[in-house]
């Protein structure tokens, strides 16, 4: 049977009267009602057009992985392990790949027992399994503001009430976290976990300082509160000293760790992992059995073969060197092309820069104009919030584009931002100074140095720091 025949056979037969559609709508679970704006989704779909320079992706670079190497590895896998690769595996993951995970985590000075590891289908599955394990409708999850946009559908699907905590250049404001936890306690609500990307945060680009890491772990212990540490980017550091993971500071009591091969090897393999206290891991394991029984044996064995045949650290080093150049290209372009009223974070690693424009510019609208007139795309900041904030910010990815495209993309964004500012000035009678035009000296008060709310000050401070 040809493909065409099959597609004809599965063509929907007469149906789709509005009544029938209503009937489906009546069957939908409550959780499907919590949806993000479809208008923004539609807008994001247009960023896929080939002529668009997209700084909107979250993609690692896969062009640097040599096809010959891929061919050799798959050939080796075929010779050594066809039967295993094509078979189901254990739910918690194949032992060979767990050994690789232990090795990767040791590179960040975090030492774990393979028995405490659950191999998952991408790191994203850990988000789902955490929610499945802990979240009843209405339960509170605490996250950063802004938070990883991809976590939002996972949290929403379980009808979590997500409370977002502000950040500055040193990551989550742990003081604000404590105040929020106090408030929630007064309201009789206990958060199920705190979700954080402490290192090179997506989308903020900032890193939780050592002092705050220590304090966050203390808070977790004092309050017996779980922390989900999402660490996809920790090994992609381009400057500065590595910081200990929350898991290593905690000793495995209140921190659940999420790792992934997506950013250090390949996102297409869809292999990630969780490290969690045993009782939590057991529940997540049960949850995973219901979702997919086990992650792909083929992908896991590919990783094991790769680790056996190649030095994975070399590839990470190669990626880091590439991304470091791209980050530099982006920071240079931002400094050159964005107007003075804009500000942005300066990541020491990872894949993202978070830029903030004057508050009267809505970046969702700006994206429409940028796409229409300049063929350039970014992620509007609102995608990283559940409470409608972030309207004047944007996430810019530098790992997935070539340096010349990054430069050209930022140049185009700069043009449309400038136009909007000039136009706003015309509308308001020729230029009320932007709210943050006054230079403010660096303040020891972390709230005043809030890089994400008042980023301009923080950027200046950071530049003077850099010496």
């Amino acid at each position, binding site marked *: 049977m040809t493909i065409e025949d099959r597609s004809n056979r599965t063509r929907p037969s007469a149906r789709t009267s509005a009544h029938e559609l209503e009937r489906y709508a009546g069957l939908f679970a409550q959780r499907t009602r919590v*949806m993000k704006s*479809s208008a923004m989704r539609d807008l994001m779909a*247009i960023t896929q*057009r080939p002529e668009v320079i997209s700084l909107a992706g979250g993609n690692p670079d896969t062009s640097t992985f040599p096809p010959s190497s891929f061919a050799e590895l798959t050939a080796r896998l075929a010779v050594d392990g066809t039967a295993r690769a094509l078979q189901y595996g254990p739910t918690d993951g194949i032992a060979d790949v767990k050994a690789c995970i232990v090795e990767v985590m040791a590179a960040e000075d975090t030492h774990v027992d393979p028995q405490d590891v659950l191999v998952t289908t991408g790191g994203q599955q850990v988000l789902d399994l955490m929610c499945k394990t802990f979240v009843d409708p209405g339960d509170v999850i605490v996250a950063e503001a802004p938070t990883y946009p991809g976590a939002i559908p996972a949290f929403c699907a379980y009808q979590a009430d997500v409370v977002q905590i502000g950040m500055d250049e040193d990551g989550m404001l742990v003081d604000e976290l404590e105040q929020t936890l106090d408030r929630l306690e007064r309201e009789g609500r206990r958060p199920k976990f705190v979700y954080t990307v402490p290192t090179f945060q997506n989308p903020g680009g900032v890193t939780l300082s050592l002092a705050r890491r220590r304090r966050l772990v203390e808070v977790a212990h004092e309050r017996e509160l779980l922390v989900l540490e999402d660490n996809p980017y920790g090994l992609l550091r381009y400057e500065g000293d590595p910081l200990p993971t929350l898991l290593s500071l905690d000793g495995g009591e209140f921190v659940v760790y999420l790792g992934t091969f997506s950013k250090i090897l390949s996102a297409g393999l869809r292999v990630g992992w969780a490290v969690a206290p045993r009782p939590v891991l057991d529940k997540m394991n049960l949850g995973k059995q219901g979702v997919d029984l086990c992650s792909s044996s083929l992908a896991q064995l590919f990783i094991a073969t790769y680790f056996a045949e190649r030095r994975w650290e070399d590839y990470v080093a190669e990626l880091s060197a590439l991304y470091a150049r791209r980050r530099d290209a982006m920071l240079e372009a931002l400094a050159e092309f964005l107007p003075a009223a804009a500000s942005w974070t300066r990541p020491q690693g990872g894949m993202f820069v978070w830029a903030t424009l004057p508050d009267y*510019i809505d970046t969702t609208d700006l994206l*429409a104009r940028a796409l229409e007139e300049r063929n350039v795309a970014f992620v509007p900041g609102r995608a990283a919030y559940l409470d409608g904030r972030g309207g004047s910010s944007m996430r810019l990815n530098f790992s997935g584009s070539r340096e010349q495209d990054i430069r050209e993309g930022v140049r185009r964004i700069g043009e449309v931002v400038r136009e909007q500012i000039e136009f706003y000035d015309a*509308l308001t009678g020729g230029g009320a100074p932007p709210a943050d035009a006054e230079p403010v000296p660096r303040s020891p008060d972390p709230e005043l140095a809030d890089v994400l709310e008042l980023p301009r000050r923080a950027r200046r401070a950071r530049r003077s720091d850099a010496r």
Partner: protein
Amino acid sequence: VSRIAVLKGGRSLERQVSLRSGAQVEDALERLGHDVLAIDVGRDLVARLRRERPDAAFVALHGRDGEDGTVQELLEIVGIPYTGSGVAACMRCADKVLAKHAFRDAAIPTPDFYAFNEAAFKELGAADAIDAIEERLGFPIVVKPADQGSALGIRFARDATEVPAALLAGFSYSDHVLLERHVAGRDLAVSILEGEPLPVVEAVPQGDDFYDFESRYEIGRTAFVCPAALDPDATAAAQAIALRAHEALGCAGVSRVDLMLGDDGDLAVLEINAIPGLTETSLLPQAADAAGIGFDALVARILDSALKAS
């Protein structure tokens, strides 16, 4: 059996909705026994139409190019009959400002408005007139891009300080922006099929965020009631005014007229969609269904009106 090209997709901001409309239409046309040629419109549109020579084109495009007369003009040149309104009516519907002037000229009630292009602000000092506009329209003011079909870019300005940012948003989607008096009331839609008004649909927002336009046409966040719970007089009045509006703009075949039933009981026409959505949640199929016209029959009638007109 006819060979029917379904035109969908394109590069408008409503591309995704259009792809869904188009897929629904393709299924229906196949069930009706037609030979379907699906075209995601792009640079090769004219070449493909010339090569494939379909008997008719079913236009399932929304937004810029597809709904504003551009594609219709090309279809006229290539000589292929197409569904829906002709070039001039599409242009009038796609431009909310032109449409409102036409309503006003035809004595069809529409909320008071002013409209400007970007140059008026940049070169003619229109900003100085904002206070007068505010005074005449009263708050809240609805600010809309003139030629954007979806909810993108529509803003409420609750006071004078919110007007500039709302204008900036509107001009992000169009070089023409409409400032319109806000009518508090019930949100109605009347679809017209071959000169006959279908039952009235009411959109009832479920959330409490009255100002959130983007949630308006999403499942779950807006409930659609069809036929709307109106007394017979109000229903008849809404249908009559919708039909007048449809005729005033010269629409043909099918259209969807959006209107408000004000708290004061007065009806006002907001705009007309020349190519109403045909997705699983769109209002036209719901209204047709309430009139006993199933989806396939609806598609068949829209297609027939195109073939008859040619």
